[in-house]
């Protein structure tokens, strides 16, 4: 690998070992988090197969994604026939409550008119007319899995949320959690509960992508947010939306606020004291209840551990890579515990990435190399220069971490060389605590192992 770091500032023509995946993957993940939803990709079958494969290796759960299986002719003349046939077959076989339709680069390139196609297919086929088709446009040449994810959430909300939908049975909160682990989803629901609220989590793949063994066969994995709940999202007490990049465009939460006056609380992923405090503040404001004692106790323990671990963390430098929302939240958190996130890299180019980081980082960003549109090659060059003590990234950062002898803490998507990514908790005071402990221990372990004597008392 090259020692040259001069390319850091040059625009490159090729992407080497990308830090991003393609947009329909993000959309498929959202579709998996809606009850009875079958993801369907309009394009060649290869994209669906590849995307399934990666989601499966991250979650270690079945992931079904149908496709319209374009042939060469369809690629030239358009895939409306395949679309109609595909949707019909998928409905007969899987009996989904709805189908989430995402496009691939192929169908986007030929400019398929999805809206007309959907309308058409629902008019013609008796059976399809009863199954809603929710469409999201996800050309990968225009956004990564992260953008695809957010776009699909918004598509779901705008498709279903309706002014005439019945009110929720109990006080309810909308949570747009972003791309987080199954354990995080469960914890967010629990948090809403602690404030006396039911949560409509969109998406909620905590069961569909981390389910129990079955004693009977299910066509679609059980679990997920119910369509009826999404319909009534306009009647919730409020929305919290997790992910900094959502604040720079019209998000699902903003749309709900505009259309139904549901107050929206755009927050970052709640990692670290400050971001968690913000979340608790929002939950308290929405529910009209004070933050419960049990959470304050968690908060207290977390802060106490910050103090305890300070001797291990001060002066430590880290490189962070992953989805933009994760990078911003993680960097903010690290800056809070005394670790300098000297490199913040993401594979895509979100709007105002630098400003968002600057706004959240304790100690400013002067010493931080911020790399939107990064790949692992650019990241490596930056790492060679900044020499961080720790890398936080996906499994795809392993080769570079190993080559440079720097410990890697895995987070984000995908993680396919460690077990249990779906159970990793990082949100809330409790999740932050778990993350904090993992970081401290990764550093301790590395120090111990790279020391010739190997002190056991650290």
């Amino acid at each position, binding site marked *: 690998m090259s020692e040259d770091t001069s390319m850091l500032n040059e625009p490159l*023509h090729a992407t080497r070992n990308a830090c991003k995946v393609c947009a329909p993957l993000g959309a498929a993940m959202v579709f998996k988090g809606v009850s009875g939803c079958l993801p369907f990709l309009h394009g060649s079958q290869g994209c669906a197969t590849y995307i399934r494969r990666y989601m499966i290796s991250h979650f270690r759960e079945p992931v079904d994604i149908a496709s319209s299986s374009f042939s060469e002719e369809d690629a030239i003349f358009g895939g409306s026939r395949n679309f109609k046939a595909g949707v019909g077959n998928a409905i007969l076989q899987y009996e989904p409550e709805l189908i989430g339709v995402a496009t691939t680069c192929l169908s986007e390139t030929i400019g398929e008119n999805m809206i007309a196609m959907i309308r058409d297919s629902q008019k013609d086929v008796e059976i399809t007319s009863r199954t809603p088709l929710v469409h999201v446009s996800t050309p990968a040449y225009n956004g990564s899995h992260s953008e695809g994810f957010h776009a699909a959430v918004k598509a779901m909300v705008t498709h279903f949320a309706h002014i005439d939908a019945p009110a929720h049975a109990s006080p309810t909160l909308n949570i747009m959690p972003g791309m987080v682990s199954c354990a995080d989803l469960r914890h967010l629901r629990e948090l809403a509960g602690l404030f006396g609220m039911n949560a409509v989590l969109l998406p909620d793949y905590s069961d569909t992508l981390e389910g129990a063994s079955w004693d009977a066969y299910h066509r679609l994995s059980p679990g997920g947010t119910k369509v009826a709940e999404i319909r009534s999202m306009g009647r919730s007490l409020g929305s919290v939306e997790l992910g900094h990049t959502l604040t720079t465009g019209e998000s699902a939460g903003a749309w709900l606020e505009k259309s139904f006056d549901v107050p929206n609380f755009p927050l970052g992923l709640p990692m670290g004291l400050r971001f968690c405090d913000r979340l608790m503040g929002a939950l308290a404001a929405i529910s009209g209840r004070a933050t419960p004692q049990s959470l304050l106790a968690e908060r207290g323990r977390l802060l106490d551990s910050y103090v305890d671990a300070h001797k291990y963390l001060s002066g430590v430098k880290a490189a962070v890579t992953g989805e933009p929302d994760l990078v911003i939240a993680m960097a903010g958190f690290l800056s809070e515990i005394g670790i300098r996130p000297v490199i913040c890299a993401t594979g895509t180019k979100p709007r105002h990435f630098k400003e968002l980081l600057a706004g959240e980082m304790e100690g400013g960003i002067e010493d931080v190399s911020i790399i939107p549109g990064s790949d692992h090659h650019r990241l490596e060059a930056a790492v060679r220069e900044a020499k961080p003590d720790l890398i936080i990234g996906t499994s795809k950062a392993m080769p570079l971490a190993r080559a440079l002898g720097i410990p890697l803490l895995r987070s984000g998507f995908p993680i396919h060389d460690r077990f249990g990514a779906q159970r990793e908790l990082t949100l809330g005071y409790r999740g932050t605590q778990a993350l904090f402990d993992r970081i401290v221990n990764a550093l301790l372990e590395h120090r111990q192992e790279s020391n010739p004597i190997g002190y056991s008392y650290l």
Partner: protein
Amino acid sequence: MSDEATDSPQAHEGLVPSAAEAREQMLEIYPKKTRRKREKQMLVNDPGSPGEIGANSRTVPGIITQRGCSYAGCKGVVIGPIYDILHITHGPIGCGWYSWLSRRNMTRIRKAGETNFLQYSMSTDMQEEQIVFGGEKKLALAIQEAYDEFHPKAISIYATCPVGLIGDDIHKVCREMKQKLGINIFGFSCEGYKGVSQSAGHHIANNGVFKHMIGLDDTPVEGKYKINILGEYNIGGDAWEIDRILALCGIKIIGTLSGGVSYDDITNCHMADLNVVMCHRSINYMAEMMEKKFGIPWFKVNFIGINGTKKSLRKIAKYFGDKELIDRVEEVIAKEMSEVRPVVEDVKTRTSGKTAALFVGGSRAHHYQDLFEDMGMKVISAGYEFAHRDDYEGRDVLPHIKMDADTRNIEELEVEQDPARFNLRGTADRKAALQSEEFSFSDYEGMMRQMGKDTLVIDDISHHEMEKLIEIYKPDVIGSGIKDKYIIEKMGVPCKQLHSYDYGGPYAGFKGAINFYKEIDRMTSTKVWKYIHAPWHDAAPAAEAAAAPEPVNA
């Protein structure tokens, strides 16, 4: 129900319907048109006269398939494993990213200073601008950039779906850059919509490798018995186990296409005297083209399973016809078998009579039947994911296969004898003599002739059919891929991934067979699903309740 069907082992137990009935139950739910198509892809097997199977036909839209695309077959399978070529995917980011080391084709660097390019995933990462205005310029710049930094021996370019549509001429860019940089640069038009599965990509890859690499280096190769192994991808180290065994026999492998193989091996591999073919589906084109051009004969081998391995070694020895080699092979077999025998004998006491089903690839659903047979297990159903009729019914059906539009779109190379280098390797007479002794060349008898009577052959199995199969047969193990693995296991049947080997392997050759026996023994003996219900689960029989352990904190 046919009379033969009642003879099937399962039917004897009186629990399981016949293959014909099972087939019917699987087909039941399909609408007419889909049913008509699936009927042709699901046959009750008769090894004596295999029926005609509707293989290599387009997957019905909306039916979730294990199949991938032609890009995956070309870049991902056939050429991807050549470690010292720098591979660049021309397209949006996903396609290249997904094929980044996601197959477990193993590689080690041979010479100091070489770069293993398999650790990289290079992509032009097309953006909207290229989709609208064309991507040729970006591709040329990407090639230049790669060259400047790595100075590789060769660069290979792969087109993904949007590329063909926006009309980028990757071959023109490759030619121009080849001229400019003076290294071998070539492209593959393997857009994912071509053909019906990854199989189209195999063909495209064979053509490109043949056109751009084979025959470039005429340096003579030392060794008495020189062969190539075609269609072996070194998943989990299979090729290395085959290397080990052949080296013990004194047989030199010039190139393994494509597993743990270098560009130089491939450019030089036409110096071999024989091609043996492992995966017929993905590489038979190459075997045929090399024979036509250079006169290298080929035959099918199978190093999966001890019987297959023994047969293959003996056939290679017989081909060379040298007493020394024939004896050496027998010695190697005897020695290796002394290690295999105790293991298989022990394992058999537990696996004998158990059942398996195999849905994988274009050859593995066939090859692995040998291993299960070694263990006394019955394969009740099998099928390929992307094979053609000849892989099921044998090569004798080749003249009868109808060309459809999907196949016609894939180029058939016109190959001619190379007058200077065509050489029957002194085997013209020998070949004739061997053939008269029922030694077959250019052969493959297909899967169905080897499979039991009244078993079910299912091509490109769908989820629904898999679910039914499990419900009806509850096999003790299913060999499939990652896309099915977790659904199968949710239903309480262990699933062995036979594409990637689940982090295990090698399974080829003698040592590989031992690994496989142990693995399947372990998997089919698992008790984990017994615990699905907690001890207090309702209607637990009294006996079970009584056997429940004391509560720990009592």
